[in-house]
Protein backbone atom coordinates (compact mmCIF):
# COMPACT_ATOMS: atom_id res chain seq x y z
CA UNK A 1 0.00 0.00 0.00
CA UNK A 2 2.93 2.30 0.76
CA UNK A 3 4.09 1.84 -2.81
CA UNK A 4 0.68 2.80 -4.22
CA UNK A 5 0.57 5.86 -1.98
CA UNK A 6 3.95 6.89 -3.31
CA UNK A 7 2.79 6.60 -6.93
CA UNK A 8 -0.36 8.51 -6.05
CA UNK A 9 1.50 11.37 -4.40
CA UNK A 10 3.92 11.67 -7.33
CA UNK A 11 1.04 11.77 -9.83
CA UNK A 12 -0.86 14.30 -7.72
CA UNK A 13 2.20 16.53 -7.37
CA UNK A 14 2.75 16.34 -11.13
CA UNK A 15 -0.86 17.26 -11.90
CA UNK A 16 -0.76 20.14 -9.41
CA UNK A 17 2.40 21.38 -11.12
CA UNK A 18 0.75 21.22 -14.56
CA UNK A 19 -2.27 23.05 -13.16
CA UNK A 20 -0.14 25.81 -11.64
CA UNK A 21 1.81 26.22 -14.87
CA UNK A 22 -1.39 26.40 -16.96
CA UNK A 23 -2.88 29.00 -14.61
CA UNK A 24 0.36 30.97 -14.66
CA UNK A 25 0.46 30.96 -18.48
CA UNK A 26 -3.22 31.92 -18.78
CA UNK A 27 -2.80 34.78 -16.29
CA UNK A 28 0.31 36.00 -18.09
CA UNK A 29 -1.41 35.95 -21.51
CA UNK A 30 -4.47 37.75 -20.15
CA UNK A 31 -2.23 40.49 -18.74
CA UNK A 32 -0.52 40.92 -22.13
CA UNK A 33 -3.68 42.47 -23.54
CA UNK A 34 -4.73 44.67 -20.61
CA UNK A 35 -3.22 48.06 -19.80
CA UNK A 36 -0.99 49.34 -18.37
CA UNK A 37 1.67 48.02 -20.75
CA UNK A 38 5.24 48.86 -19.77
CA UNK A 39 6.79 49.68 -23.14
CA UNK A 40 10.06 50.77 -21.53
CA UNK A 41 10.49 47.40 -19.91
CA UNK A 42 9.51 45.54 -23.07
CA UNK A 43 12.16 47.53 -24.92
CA UNK A 44 14.80 46.74 -22.33
CA UNK A 45 13.98 43.03 -22.47
CA UNK A 46 14.08 43.08 -26.29
CA UNK A 47 17.60 44.47 -26.18
CA UNK A 48 18.62 41.93 -23.57
CA UNK A 49 17.12 38.96 -25.40
CA UNK A 50 17.65 40.04 -29.00
CA UNK A 51 20.78 42.12 -29.13
CA UNK A 52 22.89 40.57 -26.38
CA UNK A 53 22.13 37.02 -27.55
CA UNK A 54 23.45 37.77 -31.02
CA UNK A 55 27.10 36.72 -30.40
CA UNK A 56 26.26 33.35 -28.91
CA UNK A 57 23.53 32.59 -31.45
CA UNK A 58 25.71 33.79 -34.33
CA UNK A 59 28.65 31.60 -33.28
CA UNK A 60 26.37 28.60 -32.89
CA UNK A 61 24.92 29.21 -36.34
CA UNK A 62 28.18 29.71 -38.19
CA UNK A 63 29.77 26.55 -36.81
CA UNK A 64 26.60 24.54 -37.45
CA UNK A 65 26.57 25.69 -41.08
CA UNK A 66 30.26 24.91 -41.50
CA UNK A 67 30.07 21.44 -40.00
CA UNK A 68 26.92 20.66 -41.98
CA UNK A 69 28.68 21.43 -45.23
CA UNK A 70 31.70 19.35 -44.30
CA UNK A 71 29.67 16.39 -43.00
CA UNK A 72 27.29 16.26 -45.93
CA UNK A 73 30.15 16.45 -48.43
CA UNK A 74 32.11 13.61 -46.83
CA UNK A 75 28.92 11.68 -46.12
CA UNK A 76 27.49 12.04 -49.62
CA UNK A 77 30.77 10.93 -51.16
CA UNK A 78 29.68 7.39 -50.19
CA UNK A 79 26.59 7.70 -52.37
CA UNK A 80 26.20 8.78 -55.97
CA UNK A 81 27.82 11.74 -57.65
CA UNK A 82 26.35 15.21 -57.83
CA UNK A 83 27.13 15.86 -54.20
CA UNK A 84 28.14 19.40 -54.99
CA UNK A 85 24.47 20.38 -55.49
CA UNK A 86 23.33 18.31 -52.57
CA UNK A 87 25.62 20.07 -50.06
CA UNK A 88 24.07 23.49 -50.67
CA UNK A 89 20.57 22.05 -50.44
CA UNK A 90 21.22 20.07 -47.29
CA UNK A 91 22.76 23.08 -45.56
CA UNK A 92 19.94 25.47 -46.37
CA UNK A 93 17.06 23.09 -45.64
CA UNK A 94 18.41 21.70 -42.39
CA UNK A 95 19.39 25.11 -41.09
CA UNK A 96 16.17 26.95 -41.82
CA UNK A 97 13.85 24.11 -40.85
CA UNK A 98 15.62 22.58 -37.88
CA UNK A 99 19.04 23.61 -36.68
CA UNK A 100 18.51 27.37 -36.74
CA UNK A 101 15.45 27.46 -34.49
CA UNK A 102 16.40 24.53 -32.27
CA UNK A 103 20.00 25.51 -31.58
CA UNK A 104 19.13 29.20 -31.15
CA UNK A 105 16.26 28.18 -28.86
CA UNK A 106 18.50 25.99 -26.70
CA UNK A 107 21.23 28.62 -26.49
CA UNK A 108 18.74 31.34 -25.54
CA UNK A 109 17.11 29.00 -23.00
CA UNK A 110 20.49 28.67 -21.32
CA UNK A 111 21.25 32.36 -21.47
CA UNK A 112 17.91 34.08 -21.00
CA UNK A 113 15.71 31.46 -19.33
CA UNK A 114 18.30 31.01 -16.59
CA UNK A 115 18.72 34.73 -15.98
CA UNK A 116 14.94 35.28 -15.86
CA UNK A 117 14.51 32.50 -13.29
CA UNK A 118 17.44 33.74 -11.19
CA UNK A 119 16.33 37.39 -11.25
CA UNK A 120 12.66 36.80 -10.49
CA UNK A 121 13.55 34.05 -8.02
CA UNK A 122 15.85 36.39 -6.09
CA UNK A 123 13.12 39.03 -6.12
CA UNK A 124 10.74 36.42 -4.69
CA UNK A 125 13.02 35.36 -1.81
CA UNK A 126 13.98 38.96 -0.93
CA UNK A 127 10.28 39.98 -0.84
CA UNK A 128 10.68 42.33 -3.81
CA UNK A 129 7.66 40.71 -5.48
CA UNK A 130 5.59 41.42 -2.36
CA UNK A 131 6.91 44.97 -2.37
CA UNK A 132 5.69 45.40 -5.97
CA UNK A 133 2.21 44.34 -4.89
CA UNK A 134 2.15 46.82 -2.01
CA UNK A 135 3.13 49.56 -4.47
CA UNK A 136 0.03 48.78 -6.58
CA UNK A 137 2.08 47.11 -9.30
CA UNK A 138 1.11 43.71 -10.57
CA UNK A 139 4.25 41.53 -10.83
CA UNK A 140 2.76 39.83 -13.89
CA UNK A 141 2.45 43.11 -15.75
CA UNK A 142 5.74 44.51 -14.53
CA UNK A 143 7.97 41.43 -14.82
CA UNK A 144 6.32 38.57 -16.69
CA UNK A 145 4.55 40.30 -19.59
CA UNK A 146 7.61 42.26 -20.85
CA UNK A 147 9.70 39.08 -20.85
CA UNK A 148 7.09 37.00 -22.66
CA UNK A 149 6.38 39.67 -25.28
CA UNK A 150 10.07 40.31 -25.88
CA UNK A 151 10.92 36.59 -26.00
CA UNK A 152 8.15 35.77 -28.47
CA UNK A 153 9.06 38.68 -30.73
CA UNK A 154 12.84 38.52 -30.61
CA UNK A 155 13.47 34.79 -31.11
CA UNK A 156 12.19 34.80 -34.74
CA UNK A 157 14.47 37.77 -35.46
CA UNK A 158 17.43 35.94 -33.92
CA UNK A 159 16.63 32.79 -35.89
CA UNK A 160 16.38 34.70 -39.16
CA UNK A 161 19.84 36.12 -38.53
CA UNK A 162 21.09 32.67 -37.48
CA UNK A 163 19.77 31.21 -40.77
CA UNK A 164 21.71 33.74 -42.78
CA UNK A 165 24.91 33.34 -40.77
CA UNK A 166 24.60 29.54 -40.90
CA UNK A 167 24.17 29.44 -44.68
CA UNK A 168 27.18 31.72 -44.92
CA UNK A 169 29.17 29.26 -42.76
CA UNK A 170 28.27 26.46 -45.17
CA UNK A 171 29.25 28.65 -48.08
CA UNK A 172 32.66 29.44 -46.59
CA UNK A 173 33.55 25.79 -46.04
CA UNK A 174 32.20 24.69 -49.43
CA UNK A 175 34.03 27.34 -51.38
CA UNK A 176 37.30 27.73 -49.53
CA UNK A 177 37.83 24.22 -48.24
CA UNK A 178 35.97 21.96 -50.66
CA UNK A 179 36.63 24.12 -53.69
CA UNK A 180 33.02 24.52 -54.93
CA UNK A 181 32.04 27.21 -57.40
CA UNK A 182 30.73 30.14 -55.28
CA UNK A 183 28.13 31.33 -57.82
CA UNK A 184 26.80 27.81 -58.29
CA UNK A 185 26.59 27.32 -54.53
CA UNK A 186 24.55 30.48 -54.05
CA UNK A 187 22.18 29.74 -56.89
CA UNK A 188 21.77 26.15 -55.67
CA UNK A 189 20.89 27.38 -52.19
CA UNK A 190 18.50 29.99 -53.49
CA UNK A 191 16.72 27.82 -56.05
CA UNK A 192 16.16 24.93 -53.73
CA UNK A 193 14.93 26.84 -50.72
CA UNK A 194 11.16 27.20 -50.31
CA UNK A 195 9.41 29.94 -48.32
CA UNK A 196 7.79 27.32 -46.10
CA UNK A 197 11.23 26.15 -44.90
CA UNK A 198 11.98 29.56 -43.47
CA UNK A 199 8.43 30.28 -42.29
CA UNK A 200 8.15 27.03 -40.36
CA UNK A 201 11.46 27.82 -38.69
CA UNK A 202 10.29 31.29 -37.66
CA UNK A 203 7.01 29.95 -36.29
CA UNK A 204 9.04 27.49 -34.24
CA UNK A 205 11.23 30.32 -33.01
CA UNK A 206 8.21 32.31 -31.81
CA UNK A 207 6.88 29.30 -29.90
CA UNK A 208 10.33 28.61 -28.41
CA UNK A 209 10.74 32.22 -27.31
CA UNK A 210 7.35 32.13 -25.60
CA UNK A 211 8.22 28.81 -23.92
CA UNK A 212 11.59 30.03 -22.66
CA UNK A 213 10.10 33.20 -21.15
CA UNK A 214 7.14 31.42 -19.55
CA UNK A 215 9.28 28.66 -18.03
CA UNK A 216 11.92 31.13 -16.80
CA UNK A 217 9.35 33.42 -15.19
CA UNK A 218 7.32 30.53 -13.78
CA UNK A 219 10.34 28.88 -12.15
CA UNK A 220 11.47 32.18 -10.64
CA UNK A 221 8.00 33.20 -9.52
CA UNK A 222 7.45 29.98 -7.60
CA UNK A 223 10.95 29.64 -6.16
CA UNK A 224 11.37 29.52 -2.41
CA UNK A 225 13.96 29.04 0.28
CA UNK A 226 16.89 31.35 -0.37
CA UNK A 227 19.96 30.76 -2.53
CA UNK A 228 19.35 27.04 -2.91
CA UNK A 229 15.79 27.62 -4.05
CA UNK A 230 16.88 30.16 -6.65
CA UNK A 231 19.54 27.72 -7.89
CA UNK A 232 16.94 24.99 -8.24
CA UNK A 233 14.60 27.39 -10.04
CA UNK A 234 17.34 28.25 -12.53
CA UNK A 235 18.06 24.59 -13.25
CA UNK A 236 14.35 23.84 -13.61
CA UNK A 237 13.88 26.73 -16.01
CA UNK A 238 16.68 25.60 -18.34
CA UNK A 239 15.91 21.87 -18.22
CA UNK A 240 12.15 22.21 -18.62
CA UNK A 241 12.33 24.80 -21.39
CA UNK A 242 14.95 22.72 -23.28
CA UNK A 243 12.77 19.62 -23.12
CA UNK A 244 9.68 21.58 -24.13
CA UNK A 245 11.58 23.13 -27.05
CA UNK A 246 12.50 19.69 -28.37
CA UNK A 247 8.94 18.44 -27.84
CA UNK A 248 7.28 21.41 -29.53
CA UNK A 249 9.86 21.16 -32.32
CA UNK A 250 8.56 17.71 -33.21
CA UNK A 251 4.92 18.72 -32.91
CA UNK A 252 5.31 21.80 -35.12
CA UNK A 253 7.32 19.83 -37.70
CA UNK A 254 4.52 17.26 -37.75
CA UNK A 255 1.94 20.04 -38.25
CA UNK A 256 3.86 21.64 -41.11
CA UNK A 257 5.37 18.70 -42.94
CA UNK A 258 3.64 15.58 -41.56
CA UNK A 259 1.81 13.65 -44.22
Amino acid at each position, binding site marked *: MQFLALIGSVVLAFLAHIGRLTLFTATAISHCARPPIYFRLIGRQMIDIGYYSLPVVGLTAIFSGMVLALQSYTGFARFAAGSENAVANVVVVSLTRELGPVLAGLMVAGRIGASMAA*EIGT*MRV*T*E*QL*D*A*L*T*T*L*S*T*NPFKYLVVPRIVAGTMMLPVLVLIADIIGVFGGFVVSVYKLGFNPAAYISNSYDFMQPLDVISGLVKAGVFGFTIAVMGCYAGYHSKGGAQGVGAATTNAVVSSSILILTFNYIITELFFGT
Partner: protein
Amino acid sequence: MNTTAETTVPKISLKDVHKSFGAKSVLDGINLDIAKGESVVVIGGSGTGKSVLIKCIIGILQPDSGLIAVDGEDVTHVPANARDAVNRKFGMLFQGGALFDSLPVWENVAFGLMQREHLSRAQAKARAVETLEKVGLSPDVGELSPAELSGGMQKRVGLARAIAGEPEIVFFDEPTTGLDPIMGDVINDLIIACVKQQGITALSITHDMHSARKIGDRITMLYQGKLIWDGAARDVDHADNPFVDQFVHGNAEGPIKMQVRR
Protein backbone atom coordinates in the same frame (compact mmCIF):
# COMPACT_ATOMS: atom_id res chain seq x y z
CA MET B 1 -24.37 57.29 8.96
CA ASN B 2 -23.66 59.91 11.63
CA THR B 3 -20.27 61.26 12.56
CA THR B 4 -19.91 59.35 15.82
CA ALA B 5 -20.33 56.06 13.99
CA GLU B 6 -17.64 57.08 11.50
CA THR B 7 -15.14 57.88 14.23
CA THR B 8 -15.70 54.56 15.94
CA VAL B 9 -15.10 52.48 12.81
CA PRO B 10 -11.62 51.00 13.35
CA LYS B 11 -9.05 51.69 10.65
CA ILE B 12 -8.17 48.01 10.52
CA SER B 13 -10.33 45.29 11.95
CA LEU B 14 -9.58 41.57 12.05
CA LYS B 15 -12.29 39.16 13.13
CA ASP B 16 -11.56 35.50 13.82
CA VAL B 17 -8.86 35.27 11.13
CA HIS B 18 -7.50 31.78 10.50
CA LYS B 19 -4.59 30.78 8.30
CA SER B 20 -2.76 27.48 8.13
CA PHE B 21 -0.02 26.10 5.95
CA GLY B 22 -0.60 22.38 5.54
CA ALA B 23 -1.22 20.93 8.99
CA LYS B 24 0.41 23.88 10.76
CA SER B 25 -2.05 26.47 12.00
CA VAL B 26 -0.27 29.84 11.99
CA LEU B 27 -3.14 32.20 12.74
CA ASP B 28 -5.80 30.58 14.90
CA GLY B 29 -8.60 33.04 15.42
CA ILE B 30 -7.06 36.52 15.46
CA ASN B 31 -9.22 39.41 16.64
CA LEU B 32 -7.66 42.84 16.47
CA ASP B 33 -9.03 46.37 16.06
CA ILE B 34 -6.71 49.27 15.31
CA ALA B 35 -8.10 52.76 15.65
CA LYS B 36 -7.24 55.59 13.26
CA GLY B 37 -3.87 57.12 14.11
CA GLU B 38 -3.01 54.38 16.56
CA SER B 39 0.32 52.58 16.53
CA VAL B 40 0.01 48.91 17.42
CA VAL B 41 3.00 46.61 17.84
CA VAL B 42 2.66 42.85 17.62
CA ILE B 43 5.41 41.04 19.51
CA GLY B 44 6.19 37.36 19.38
CA GLY B 45 9.00 34.90 18.78
CA SER B 46 10.50 34.12 15.41
CA GLY B 47 8.30 31.98 13.20
CA THR B 48 5.11 32.61 15.17
CA GLY B 49 3.30 34.05 12.18
CA LYS B 50 3.73 37.77 12.70
CA SER B 51 4.65 38.33 9.05
CA VAL B 52 1.75 36.15 7.93
CA LEU B 53 -0.58 38.46 9.83
CA ILE B 54 0.59 41.52 7.89
CA LYS B 55 0.63 39.64 4.57
CA CYS B 56 -3.01 38.65 5.11
CA ILE B 57 -3.99 42.28 5.65
CA ILE B 58 -2.18 43.61 2.58
CA GLY B 59 -3.56 40.81 0.44
CA ILE B 60 -0.38 38.92 -0.41
CA LEU B 61 -1.82 35.92 1.45
CA GLN B 62 -5.48 34.96 1.59
CA PRO B 63 -6.78 34.00 5.06
CA ASP B 64 -8.53 30.62 5.25
CA SER B 65 -11.47 32.10 7.13
CA GLY B 66 -12.43 35.22 9.06
CA LEU B 67 -12.87 38.81 8.08
CA ILE B 68 -10.39 41.63 7.55
CA ALA B 69 -11.82 45.11 7.14
CA VAL B 70 -10.07 48.39 6.34
CA ASP B 71 -12.14 51.50 7.11
CA GLY B 72 -15.07 49.18 7.75
CA GLU B 73 -14.84 47.68 4.28
CA ASP B 74 -14.26 43.95 3.87
CA VAL B 75 -11.00 43.43 1.99
CA THR B 76 -10.74 39.64 2.28
CA HIS B 77 -12.73 38.88 -0.83
CA VAL B 78 -12.19 41.85 -3.11
CA PRO B 79 -11.39 41.17 -6.78
CA ALA B 80 -7.84 41.85 -7.96
CA ASN B 81 -8.63 45.15 -9.71
CA ALA B 82 -10.33 46.61 -6.61
CA ARG B 83 -7.41 45.44 -4.49
CA ASP B 84 -5.25 48.21 -5.96
CA ALA B 85 -7.57 50.86 -4.52
CA VAL B 86 -7.21 49.27 -1.08
CA ASN B 87 -3.45 48.96 -1.40
CA ARG B 88 -3.18 52.68 -2.15
CA LYS B 89 -3.89 53.26 1.53
CA PHE B 90 -0.95 51.10 2.53
CA GLY B 91 2.77 51.54 2.80
CA MET B 92 5.08 48.84 3.99
CA LEU B 93 8.63 48.63 5.27
CA PHE B 94 9.91 45.13 4.61
CA GLN B 95 12.24 43.28 6.92
CA GLY B 96 15.11 43.05 4.44
CA GLY B 97 14.21 46.36 2.81
CA ALA B 98 13.08 44.57 -0.37
CA LEU B 99 14.44 47.43 -2.46
CA PHE B 100 14.41 46.84 -6.21
CA ASP B 101 18.09 46.34 -6.94
CA SER B 102 17.65 46.97 -10.66
CA LEU B 103 16.63 50.59 -9.99
CA PRO B 104 18.53 53.49 -8.41
CA VAL B 105 17.50 54.61 -4.93
CA TRP B 106 15.35 57.56 -6.06
CA GLU B 107 13.38 55.36 -8.46
CA ASN B 108 12.74 52.95 -5.61
CA VAL B 109 11.30 55.75 -3.53
CA ALA B 110 9.35 57.20 -6.46
CA PHE B 111 8.11 53.80 -7.68
CA GLY B 112 4.66 54.02 -6.09
CA LEU B 113 4.26 57.65 -7.22
CA MET B 114 4.94 56.78 -10.84
CA GLN B 115 2.73 53.67 -10.75
CA ARG B 116 -0.23 55.05 -8.81
CA GLU B 117 -0.30 58.76 -9.41
CA HIS B 118 1.29 58.61 -12.87
CA LEU B 119 3.67 61.47 -12.11
CA SER B 120 6.29 62.21 -14.73
CA ARG B 121 9.80 61.00 -13.94
CA ALA B 122 10.99 64.54 -13.14
CA GLN B 123 8.08 65.25 -10.77
CA ALA B 124 8.45 61.86 -9.13
CA LYS B 125 12.16 62.41 -8.67
CA ALA B 126 11.56 65.75 -6.93
CA ARG B 127 9.09 64.07 -4.56
CA ALA B 128 11.57 61.23 -3.97
CA VAL B 129 14.34 63.66 -3.04
CA GLU B 130 11.95 65.42 -0.65
CA THR B 131 11.03 62.12 0.99
CA LEU B 132 14.67 61.05 1.22
CA GLU B 133 15.36 64.27 3.12
CA LYS B 134 12.62 63.40 5.61
CA VAL B 135 14.49 60.22 6.50
CA GLY B 136 17.79 62.06 6.71
CA LEU B 137 19.35 61.14 3.37
CA SER B 138 20.92 63.64 1.01
CA PRO B 139 19.79 63.90 -2.63
CA ASP B 140 23.00 62.34 -3.98
CA VAL B 141 22.10 59.08 -2.22
CA GLY B 142 19.23 58.93 -4.69
CA GLU B 143 21.62 58.26 -7.54
CA LEU B 144 23.23 55.22 -5.86
CA SER B 145 22.07 51.67 -6.38
CA PRO B 146 20.55 49.93 -3.33
CA ALA B 147 23.42 47.41 -3.25
CA GLU B 148 25.84 50.26 -2.45
CA LEU B 149 24.01 51.19 0.77
CA SER B 150 24.60 49.91 4.32
CA GLY B 151 21.83 48.04 6.14
CA GLY B 152 20.73 51.13 8.05
CA MET B 153 20.61 53.24 4.90
CA GLN B 154 18.59 50.54 3.13
CA LYS B 155 16.07 50.61 5.98
CA ARG B 156 15.81 54.38 5.64
CA VAL B 157 15.23 54.10 1.90
CA GLY B 158 12.64 51.40 2.60
CA LEU B 159 10.94 53.76 5.03
CA ALA B 160 11.05 56.57 2.48
CA ARG B 161 9.47 54.29 -0.12
CA ALA B 162 6.78 53.25 2.36
CA ILE B 163 5.75 56.84 3.19
CA ALA B 164 6.36 58.49 -0.21
CA GLY B 165 2.81 57.85 -1.42
CA GLU B 166 1.39 59.46 1.75
CA PRO B 167 -0.36 56.29 2.89
CA GLU B 168 -3.02 56.15 5.61
CA ILE B 169 -1.61 52.95 7.11
CA VAL B 170 2.01 51.84 7.30
CA PHE B 171 3.17 48.33 8.16
CA PHE B 172 6.59 47.73 9.67
CA ASP B 173 8.07 44.23 9.44
CA GLU B 174 10.83 44.12 12.07
CA PRO B 175 12.06 47.66 11.41
CA THR B 176 15.14 47.41 13.65
CA THR B 177 16.21 43.80 13.06
CA GLY B 178 19.78 43.45 11.85
CA LEU B 179 20.80 46.98 12.82
CA ASP B 180 23.14 48.09 15.59
CA PRO B 181 21.34 49.56 18.64
CA ILE B 182 22.10 53.16 17.71
CA MET B 183 20.95 52.83 14.12
CA GLY B 184 17.95 50.91 15.42
CA ASP B 185 17.02 53.84 17.59
CA VAL B 186 17.52 56.26 14.70
CA ILE B 187 14.96 54.22 12.76
CA ASN B 188 12.62 54.27 15.77
CA ASP B 189 12.86 58.07 15.90
CA LEU B 190 12.22 58.31 12.16
CA ILE B 191 9.17 56.10 12.47
CA ILE B 192 7.85 58.35 15.23
CA ALA B 193 8.56 61.51 13.24
CA CYS B 194 7.30 60.28 9.87
CA VAL B 195 4.36 58.17 10.97
CA LYS B 196 3.08 58.73 14.49
CA GLN B 197 3.37 62.49 14.39
CA GLN B 198 1.63 62.61 10.98
CA GLY B 199 -1.38 60.74 12.37
CA ILE B 200 -0.72 57.72 10.20
CA THR B 201 -2.02 54.42 11.51
CA ALA B 202 0.81 51.93 12.06
CA LEU B 203 1.00 48.20 12.59
CA SER B 204 4.47 46.91 13.43
CA ILE B 205 5.78 43.48 14.19
CA THR B 206 9.00 43.08 16.09
CA HIS B 207 10.77 41.12 18.77
CA ASP B 208 12.88 44.13 19.75
CA MET B 209 11.27 45.23 23.03
CA HIS B 210 13.03 48.59 23.14
CA SER B 211 11.62 49.41 19.72
CA ALA B 212 8.16 48.07 20.64
CA ARG B 213 7.94 50.27 23.75
CA LYS B 214 9.10 53.29 21.84
CA ILE B 215 7.02 53.18 18.65
CA GLY B 216 3.89 51.49 20.01
CA ASP B 217 0.86 53.01 21.69
CA ARG B 218 -0.46 49.53 22.20
CA ILE B 219 1.32 46.18 22.32
CA THR B 220 -0.18 42.78 21.70
CA MET B 221 1.54 39.42 21.83
CA LEU B 222 1.11 36.62 19.30
CA TYR B 223 1.72 33.12 20.60
CA GLN B 224 0.67 29.85 18.96
CA GLY B 225 -1.64 31.60 16.52
CA LYS B 226 -3.53 33.62 19.11
CA LEU B 227 -3.15 37.11 20.53
CA ILE B 228 -2.64 36.22 24.18
CA TRP B 229 -2.19 39.71 25.59
CA ASP B 230 -3.21 43.18 24.57
CA GLY B 231 -2.53 46.38 26.48
CA ALA B 232 -0.99 49.82 26.55
CA ALA B 233 2.72 49.93 25.72
CA ARG B 234 3.62 51.23 29.20
CA ASP B 235 1.93 48.20 30.84
CA VAL B 236 3.97 45.60 29.01
CA ASP B 237 6.62 45.39 31.73
CA HIS B 238 4.07 44.41 34.37
CA ALA B 239 1.67 42.52 32.20
CA ASP B 240 0.99 39.84 34.80
CA ASN B 241 1.04 37.24 32.08
CA PRO B 242 3.76 34.58 32.35
CA PHE B 243 4.18 34.38 28.55
CA VAL B 244 4.57 38.13 28.12
CA ASP B 245 6.86 38.37 31.15
CA GLN B 246 9.13 35.68 29.77
CA PHE B 247 9.27 37.33 26.35
CA VAL B 248 9.79 40.86 27.65
CA HIS B 249 12.59 39.80 29.95
CA GLY B 250 14.08 37.41 27.43
CA ASN B 251 14.26 34.39 29.74
CA ALA B 252 15.06 30.98 28.31
CA GLU B 253 13.08 29.39 31.16
CA GLY B 254 9.33 29.81 31.25
CA PRO B 255 6.06 28.66 29.73
CA ILE B 256 7.22 29.38 26.13
CA LYS B 257 9.16 26.45 24.75
CA MET B 258 11.30 27.14 21.71
CA GLN B 259 10.04 25.32 18.68
CA VAL B 260 12.91 23.99 16.67
CA ARG B 261 10.83 23.36 13.57
CA ARG B 262 8.48 25.84 12.06
